[in-house]
């Protein structure tokens, strides 16, 4: 346990400068949206990482605001949360996401020497496939497979679980009571 923690810390420290530099360069149009967004729980870095991770799982999740969705629903109490995580592990929802985001970057630094945001598409896919197959090398906590399951559900929620998402899939929405907003 101790050695894993040390390892993660070392990888994060070693890469911090490259990470900041590349992040400045890679702030593209999508990042602009993020810049304008204020987060209550996440730092911008955490939000960017989560959004990038979810966007590989469900294309369009970043633009649909997945990081904001998660952040917003971690900020109230459990009773008002719209996250699927509340069914399965409501004990420390903020800690779950925060540790997961640290796990993503620790694994990506370990495998490719760069943060998840900086990876090539094929490398990002490889990371997700490793989460699906429970084959992460350094990321242990929270269980990467479970983190994938939850973050995938968040991404599916914002992309396909809304009226617009239903329309994209050709499903009539047929609401009794329409949601006041998508989420």
């Amino acid at each position, binding site marked *: 346990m101790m050695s894993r923690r040390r390892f993660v810390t070392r990888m994060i420290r070693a890469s911090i400068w490259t990470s900041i530099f590349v992040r400045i360069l890679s702030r593209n149009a999508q990042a602009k949206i993020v810049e304008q967004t204020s987060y209550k729980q996440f730092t911008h870095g955490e939000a960017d990482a989560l959004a990038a991770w979810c966007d590989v799982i469900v294309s369009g999740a970043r633009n649909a605001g997945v990081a904001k969705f998660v952040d917003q629903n971690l900020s109230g109490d459990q009773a008002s949360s719209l996250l699927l995580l509340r069914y399965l592990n409501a004990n420390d929802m903020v800690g779950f996401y925060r540790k997961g985001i640290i796990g993503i970057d620790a694994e990506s630094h370990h495998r490719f020497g760069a943060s998840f945001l900086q990876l090539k598409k094929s490398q990002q896919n490889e990371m997700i496939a490793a989460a699906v197959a429970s084959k992460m090398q350094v990321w242990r906590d929270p269980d990467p497979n479970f983190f994938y399951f939850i973050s995938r559900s968040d991404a*599916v929620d914002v992309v396909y679980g809304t009226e617009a998402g239903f329309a994209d899939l050709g499903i009539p929405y047929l609401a009794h009571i329409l949601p006041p907003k*998508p989420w």
Partner: protein
Amino acid sequence: MAKISREKVEVVIAGSGIAGSTMAAELGEAGFNVLVLEAGPERKLSEMISSQIWSRRLRWAGPEVQETGDLVGAANFAMGWGTGGAGLHWYANWYRLHPDDFRVRSQYGRSLDWPISYEELRPWYDHAQVYFGVSGGKNPSAPPGASYPMPAIPISSQSAAIKRGFDAEGLTLTSNTLAVNSVPYDGRAGCILDGWCDAGCPIGALANPLVLQWPRAKRAGVKLRHNAYVTRIETDPSGSRATGVVYIDENGQENFQPADVVIAACHTIWNARLLLLSSNDKYPDGLGNSSGTLGHYFTSHALTTIHGLFKQETEPHTGVTGANTLCLDGYDKKQPAKDAFGSRAWLVAQAAKPNDLLGTALAKPELFGDALNNYLHRASSHYGNMTVLCEEDAIPENRVALDPSKRDRYGLPQARVINSLPQENVARSELAKSEGLRIFKAAGTREAWAGPRAPMHMIGGTIMGSDPTTSVTNSFGQIHEVENVFVAGASLFPTPGAINPTATLAALVFRTADFIRTNRSSLLP
């Protein structure tokens, strides 16, 4: 801080879900002065927003549960919080236990027996289906009983696609029985088959406590207090009578609510915990625990869902979330193979939206990126599913317990659920999975696959029995040691059968309410 003392009532009920609200309406209408204490907030029909995202707000938001074992993991999904409890987002599949489910121990030498037979409960099932409003047709594999008050809902395209597989396997697929109005009933609208039951049915086509029990209870003068978490039942110094309950209100203040009769209707885990928390000098191991069985014999149903993509269009977003059709053929064959034990029931063609736990996306959790997008576009019109419920033996090792080392938000020892599926039930569940895959293959699916085994429903922990040395309550849910304390809910079931519990829970509530009515003079001092 001193407890606030409240004005005495005749009956206090902890929990406003289907069990608590039905009991409250029945006793209120019988002229009792009834108060219901509900831990969660007030709920309104307007909160039943048609969205799998927004519907999560209706779910459990009470104290945490620790879960260990191989058949646990979704307690927060299975419980409700606030007026009506899980009755606001249940699916209304409505089934009777079969005669053999009441006598598993005497017939098979395992699990437990009930203190009553099917025949004793049968009139209460008949009564409950009229009260709730049940639609359904004849089913030769179902136990005998009165015909349903409404015809079955029509067969969906999803069911029609799957039926070919049942036919090929020589199994009968019948219409489902549901507490859903196939036609307008009792002043409530008929179902429009839009598939939103999991998010709540604000038009009241699905029997939920906001449209069914609470209007009746309120007319009868029943009072309902929200944000009132019941923490213990108090008894007099002799321990022979309960004097009322202690609850924590929204300000964190302790209150004492005196009552002549106390009824725990908090759902399985919390019924057991409330009795365990009510220990005192007279009952050091918990109220109703002289037998040592309090908390024990917890059971669930082992569920496996079979998913498939069909050549024809199945309109999976339509219909009811429960199930459109049903197969009870072979239910009574509890020993389908050597070393395999338990009944099984197939619930077929549940309406599915793209997201949430039962959505089409999570049916294939390994897909991501383009593969997920392609699959979802196909699944949106060609997906089909069915779920098998398999019986779990009642064994003492599976239980609800207190963990004094961990405290919840009320400062109370946390609840722990320990549940692992006995080996012969695992074998039964595996047989059912193979059967399901064969059915889907025979139905001509392009692709069929099985999801993981998961728990569904929480049952037992305050089991009823005739012998006070081996059970917590008698057949009326009255705890053996203290005559004015009752338990209502599926926590009373000694065995779970392989069908959803709420019809049986309701039948028992009506039977207990009748008992309390009949014994009014001895119960009220």
